[in-house]
């Protein structure tokens, strides 16, 4: 049987199961009594075994089989959870991962699993009793429970009745088709797809029970029902459905007279040999396959380009809504305004939904780190506790995809260079176990990801020495640099202060890659460190939210700029005479703080800028811990805008984060508040 069409599904599911095993093992390692995690790992191994056997991946099947046997003993408490055993199982999971990726790459299981299997058996024997083997391919008892399914309350709505009647008018017959799959059936979704396609080829599928989405994501046990319209007799339908592999049973019952009866489907379902569902019963019994699958996020994969296109369309809609709103203000027609308000509500909801669809929790990246840190710390003989916080923080899918590698570098760095050996730590009066903290949180329209360790920290003197040695700065220059400037040398290519080169890091690659990747994402990375106390890497990334709230400001008679509201701390009117000039830079004393003033019209050389009067409007912007007062000619108002790229021709213009189209069709540029202070400084010094 040709399985290639299922390969994609197989790989996706296998990866999910491997991740589930990894998660379970880590939990189990933390708490050897954790029976739930053990069950989870066991089930994942069991399912994997069956799947890979069906697909003909024998190494994978044999290894998972051996693992399953061992896990079975663990869960029956015939064996105790020891650290040796955990290591072995972790290795097996790694091997599974390797095998899976080999299969994905089209290499047929090149890695050998014989040794691992032998070791698994060896461990199993230690347990004393002979392994209670379950014959391969046969499902455990928990899955054999007869479960009601495919027969929930199916009540036809008016539309469906109408369609049936219409179809009958055309000579089609209506059926309730109940299909039951074989118990051993793997990749049920693929099977369902095949069945539905076969049905569609010959007639119309009106609806399915459970709904198609549930079928596709395998949220059903073995049977499902289809309301089917076709010009065929029941025997014919039964025949072609039974010719599909792994179909256990097909029941076709005509659906005709009862159509008018409200409960026809429930009756039909019952007639088809199903026990009626208790009202409100929606939960699947735990322990069955359905239970395992529910633990994994149910998702539909959507091409990111489609989401982008959708996002753009919503953007257009928002622009047109603003235009309509303006027309509404002038027109003053009550009916129109009501409609506009309704439209505004709908667009807002739609917009929120589309944005959400593009956002994924950073958890997706974080989830692989506990395992990595565990392995690394063992390898290096260190004790490290990885604390993850804010995994639920959501950010744009594209950013999530890119941020993994830089974080791996930083974590490896923290464990290898940051955290000391237990002995060193004891001497330094610290707890033996070092802590690496990985946190994510929203801050304004940015996401801040921090990697912090309580290790030995980074010696500024060493960095300075190294920078001079590498010819990055002269000794005199180095003396004038700020702490932060010195720290940033660490992100230069080839820069390493590690005395020794370990397997893990210290080859001078890494941090420059981190900096490059983060910058490519329009983000920033900074390092704070204190010798003896630890280091903290702070990565700031844009959410790349395509729609933001802004304050529109005007320069001269024509120019309009948008400032992201997130970065605005306050808007004040100040007297010109309160502005102080210190060393060619204007400052303002504001709430007890001295903040630099930036005159936007001067910076942008606006031709018809307003003359300086007695007072001026200052927008106080907060960006990267700094505050800056931006002087503008007029304040226009708050508006939600869609960020549009300026295009590659203008990608060198760093003052703007993009542009937007206002309600009146005019273009406004969006200030890049993150870059603004530094850029203004550059312009001033070069002038």
């Amino acid at each position: 049987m040709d399985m290639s069409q299922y390969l994609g599904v197989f790989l996706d599911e296998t990866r999910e199961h491997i991740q589930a095993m990894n998660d379970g093992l880590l939990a189990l390692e933390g708490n050897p009594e954790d029976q739930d995690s053990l069950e989870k790992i066991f089930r994942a191994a069991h399912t994997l075994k069956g799947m890979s056997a069906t697909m003909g991946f024998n190494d994978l099947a044999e290894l998972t089989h051996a693992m399953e046997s061992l896990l079975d003993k663990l869960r029956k408490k015939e064996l105790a959870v020891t650290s040796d055993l955990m290591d072995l199982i972790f290795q097996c999971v790694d091997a599974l991962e390797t095998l899976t990726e080999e299969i994905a790459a089209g290499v047929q299981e090149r890695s050998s699993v014989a040794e691992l299997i032998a070791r698994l058996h060896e461990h199993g024997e230690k347990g004393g009793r002979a392994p209670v083997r379950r014959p391969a391919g046969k499902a455990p008892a928990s899955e054999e429970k007869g479960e009601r399914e495919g027969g929930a309350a199916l009540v036809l709505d008016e539309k469906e009745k109408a369609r049936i009647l219409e179809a009958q008018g055309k000579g089609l017959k209506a059926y309730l088709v109940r299909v039951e799959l074989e118990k051993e059936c793997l990749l049920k979704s693929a099977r369902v797809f095949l069945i539905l396609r076969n049905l569609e080829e010959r007639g119309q599928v009106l609806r399915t029970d459970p709904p198609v989405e549930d079928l596709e994501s395998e949220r059903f046990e073995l049977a499902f029902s289809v309301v089917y319209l076709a010009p065929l007799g029941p025997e014919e339908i039964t025949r072609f459905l039974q010719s599909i592999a792994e179909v256990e049973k097909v029941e076709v019952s005509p659906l005709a007279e009862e159509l008018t009866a409200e409960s026809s489907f429930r009756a039909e379902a019952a007639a088809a040999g199903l026990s009626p569902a208790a009202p409100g019963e929606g939960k699947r019994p735990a322990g069955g396959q359905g239970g395992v699958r529910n633990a994994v996020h149910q998702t539909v994969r959507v091409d990111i380009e489609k989401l982008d296109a959708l996002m753009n369309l919503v953007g257009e809609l928002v622009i047109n809504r603003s235009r309509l709103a303006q027309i509404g203000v002038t027109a003053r027609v009550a009916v129109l305004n009501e409609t506009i308000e309704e439209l505004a509500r709908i667009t807002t909801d739609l917009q929120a939904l589309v944005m959400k669809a593009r956002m994924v929790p950073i958890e997706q990246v974080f989830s692989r780190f506990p395992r990595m840190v565990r392995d690394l710390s063992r390898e290096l003989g260190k004790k490290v506790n990885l604390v993850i916080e804010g995994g639920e923080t959501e950010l744009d899918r594209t950013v999530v995809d890119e941020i993994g590698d830089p974080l791996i570098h930083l974590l490896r760095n923290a464990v290898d260079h940051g955290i000391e050996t237990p002995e060193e730590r004891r001497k330094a009066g610290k707890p033996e176990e070092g802590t690496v903290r990985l946190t994510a949180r929203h801050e304004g329209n940015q996401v801040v990801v921090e990697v912090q360790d309580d290790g030995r920290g980074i010696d500024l003197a060493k960095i300075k020495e190294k920078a001079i040695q590498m010819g990055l700065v002269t000794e005199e220059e180095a003396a004038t640099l700020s702490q932060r400037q010195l720290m940033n040398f660490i992100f230069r290519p080839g820069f390493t202060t590690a005395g020794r080169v370990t397997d893990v890091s210290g080859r001078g690659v890494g941090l420059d890659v981190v900096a490059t990747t983060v910058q490519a994402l329009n983000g920033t990375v900074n390092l704070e460190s204190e010798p003896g106390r630890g280091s903290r890497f702070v990565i700031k990334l844009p959410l790349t939210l395509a729609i933001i709230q802004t304050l529109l400001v005007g320069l001269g008679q024509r120019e309009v700029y948008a400032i992201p509201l997130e970065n605005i701390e306050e808007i004040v009117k100040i007297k010109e005479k309160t502005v102080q000039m210190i060393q060619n830079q204007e400052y303002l004393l504001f709430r007890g703080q001295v903040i630099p003033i930036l005159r936007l019209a001067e910076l942008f050389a606006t031709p018809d800028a307003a003359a300086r009067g007695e007072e001026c409007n200052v927008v106080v912007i907060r960006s990267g811990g700094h505050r800056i007062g931006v002087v503008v000619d007029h304040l226009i108002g708050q508006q939600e805008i869609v960020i549009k790229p300026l295009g590659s021709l203008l990608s060198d213009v760093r003052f703007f984060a993009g542009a937007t189209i206002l309600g009146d069709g005019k273009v406004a540029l969006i200030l890049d508040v993150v870059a603004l202070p530094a850029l203004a400084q550059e312009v001033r010094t070069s002038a």
Partner: protein
Amino acid sequence: MADFPVVIFRLGQAEYAVTLDQVQEIINVSEIARVPHAPPYVLGVLNLRGRILPVIDLKKRLNLGRTEIGESSRIVVAKVDDVVVGLLVDFVLETTSLRESDVESAVVGLGAARGREFIQGIVKYQERLLTLLDLGKVLERSSEQEKDAARQAG
């Protein structure tokens, strides 16, 4: 030899041609928003049906001085390698077909001409001489000229 369609337009008194497949459309000049600190030949951006279209002053780009926007001014919306840019021109004359064999790519004396790097060749058409522009080069960001310009501006 094959024929290829072109759009012919005027910058000052001289006539220029760009191949039609690089032209998306020709639009009237609407309000252009200035982009501070952009290269000097970039006039700004405008709203092209909800998209941001950067517009460049082609005359300035070719080192021929500045364009005064007038009644007959048009923006030729060019698309090269997915980069869409508006080119401000003084007058759009016609679209026509040119013969490839009429393109003279190695014209003596052109080497010294300003903006030489943007010129693909000279074409004789109905007793007139057209300059066939290489739009790929015109839209290239990192041309030497631009670096000079940026240096001057900075």
